[in-house]
Structure formats: C-alpha cells, structure tokens
C-alpha cells in the first residue's frame, strides 16, 4: 500500500435531517437538532419531528381532498354541458347554453390538476368560482338555493378546510425547505 494515500473521512451528518454538520456545531443549522444535547433532548426533538410529519400528512390529505372536490365540480359542469347540448341541440343558440358549462368544466379541471403544485391559489380560486356560480344560479331561480344543499355544504367545507391546510402546508414547506 502506498503510504501517501489518505482515506477520506466520511462527513458527519445530522441524525434528524441528514444535513452535513461541522464539528463545532452544537445545533444543526438546517433543522435545529441538538447535536451535542443530552439523549433526552435529542429524543424530545425527534418525537416532535414525528408529530410535525404527522401534521404534514394531515394537511396534505386535506389539500388532496379539496383538489378532488375541484375534479368533482369539473365532472358536474361537464355533465351539465353535455345535457344542455343534447336538450338544446335544435336551438340556434345551443353554443350559448353549452359553452359556459364547458368553460367551467375546463376551469375546475385546470384548478384541480394544479392544486398539488399551487394549492392555495387553486383552492381559493375554485371556492370563489363555485360560490359565484351558485349565486348566479340563485339569482336565476331562487329555488336553486335549496337544491343539493348538503352536497354544496360538503364541497364548501372541503374547500375551506383545504385553504387552511394549504396555508399550514406552505409554511411547513418553507420552514423545512421542501420543494414542490
């Protein structure tokens, strides 16, 4: 063996986030793990991290559910467009009846598919769009306020929960440097 060869020492890594650490570090500069803390301090930190990960998964699920509601809304709008197309097929203004529902379907579909990347923007837009459509339907015929009211409340609930979770999720991602 050649004596001049030196074996590269493996770099020390944080036990929590595996970020590279320097010998002098008392805390990890990426996650705050107490590198030179007592065993108890380190255990408390790691269990708190576990709790954070559970919260992260809960927020993710809620955002996913809100995103799915946007897909359902796209489906409803598409169904509406198909029904109005076939019922008004002979009307010269068939496009005027079909196109708004078709545009809505496309909008909800686009919002749903981008809701994983930009959850806050898509869920806020989806909720406001849905509420405006409901208001327009009620103005057109006030009886519409009662039709499918439970489904409407569930969809609005999912979307509002989705907005809250999107805020938490974005904060979490920012704090833990998680990229989309």
């Amino acid at each position, binding site marked *: 063996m050649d004596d001049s060869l030196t074996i590269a020492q493996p770099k020390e890594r944080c036990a929590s986030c595996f970020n590279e650490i320097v010998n002098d570090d008392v*805390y990890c500069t990426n996650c705050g793990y107490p590198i030179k803390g007592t065993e108890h301090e380190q255990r408390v930190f790691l269990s708190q991290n576990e709790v954070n990960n559970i919260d992260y998964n809960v927020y993710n699920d809620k955002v996913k559910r809100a995103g799915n509601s946007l897909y359902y809304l796209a489906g409803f709008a598409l169904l509406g467009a198909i029904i109005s197309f076939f019922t008004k097929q002979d009307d010269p203004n068939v496009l005027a009846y079909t196109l708004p529902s078709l545009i809505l379907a496309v909008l909800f579909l686009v919002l749903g598919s981008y809701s994983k990347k*930009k959850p806050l923007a898509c869920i806020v837009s989806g909720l406001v769009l849905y509420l405006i459509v409901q208001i327009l339907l009620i103005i057109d015929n006030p009886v519409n306020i009662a039709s499918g009211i439970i489904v409407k409340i569930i969809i609005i609930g999912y979307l509002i929960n989705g907005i809250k979770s999107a805020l938490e999720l974005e904060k979490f991602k920012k704090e833990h440097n998680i990229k989309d």
Partner: protein
Amino acid sequence: MLSEEIAPSETKACVQCTALLNIDSKFCNSCGAKQSLSEVKVTDQWNLLKQAAIFYALYLFLCCLSQFTDAFQEISWYLVLELACVILTVSFFAINWSENKALLKWPGFSLQKLSAYCGIAMAGAFLVHYSVDWLNVTIYSQEKHLFNASRGNYYAIFLLVFFTAVTPALFEELGFRGYLLQSLLKVSDTHQAVYISAFLFAIIHLSFISLFWLIPFALFIGYVRVRENTLWYGIFFHFCFNLTACLFELLQQPK
C-alpha cells in the same frame, strides 16, 4: 462556529445570541434559535384572507346589484352604486394606510415605460374588441353594445367614458392591485398572490366567456404592479385599455 473562509457578505448574525452564521442557516449552530422570527403566523394569514373575503363579497354584491337589478340601470341609482364601490375600495385600501400609501407614489417614473404600457393596452383592446365581436356573433348570433343611448348624445358619451374608462381604472386598481394583492402577498408567494388577485378580478365581471382576455389582462397588470411597486402604471394601462374599447364602441354605434 463559522470557518474563516466564509466572506462577511455570506454571513448573518443570530437573532438571539448574535453569533455569526452562514446566510442560509435556518437555525443558530450555537444556541439553536430559529432564524425566521419575523414570519407572519398562519392565524394572521387566515385573518387577512377573511378580511379580503369580506371586501370581495361586498364588491360582488354591488356588481350583482348593478348587473341584475332593473332599478340600478337608471343613472341616479347607478351613481349611488358607483359611489358605494368607491367608498368600499378606499376604506379597505386605507385599513393598512401606512403600508399601502407607498403604492400611490411613483418611484422611477419613466415616460417611455408609460408609453409602452399604454401602447400595449391599446393594441390589446383592439384585439379583444374584434375577438369579442366575433364571439358574440358566433355564440349569441348578435352584436352587443355597451350603451346604445350614447348615439349623438354628448352627455351620454361623457358618462360612457367616465364610467367605463376613468372610474374602473382608478378604483379597480386601488381595490384589486392595491388592497387585495397587497394582502395576498403577505399570505402567499408573489406568483400565487398575483394569480389569485387576477382570477378573482376576472370572475367578478360575471362573464365566463370574457375570461379568455380578462385573466391575461389582470395577470399583466398584477405583474406590472409587483415589478414597478406602484399602482400608477396599472391605472394608466387599465385606463387606455378601457378608453380604446369605449372609442371602438362609439365608432361602431348603429346609425
């Protein structure tokens, strides 16, 4: 502690113990303190969103009144509605006056830039006018006009220009790119904030078919407002766009 090779420009002091840290450090390596203490809390963000929702709901209510209520088609009631919109917008803009007043300043005014924005607005209005005309004929089998009553009536022409070019440019910008966008920038990143304000602005016009031009229009003004850090370029852009649309409307009035 930091190694000596790191340049001072790449370091920062810990918010708690003032130890020197690498600029990217999220926690202090000496005391473990988190370095981003000035971040807005989620509860504050949620409250900001709720406040923005109240503004939007009230604005939407006024828009629905003006569009769907016969009484508000009369000029006197229409003026009352316009006044309500102005009061609403100015009140919400003034809630955070100490911060928002900076948007009314015009730092680095450039006549060339202003002319360029106005030129883009006029070209955009030209394109939108002809594509909307084509869509109206294709979809509704008819042409639509803003105010048929303005033919030969100078008073009506003045009102048309005032209510479609001047007041929307001033107060929609103050409300949507001023108050709303400024609030959203505290809740989310720049791209999402601009996108949300643009989408909400577009759908409040209550015309799904017009979204094809309203969304890009609002996105453009939103990015101009963030880039230039003033509302004025957006106000002039919006004014030129609406004025060009008005002039087309007046030129095409049925004889």
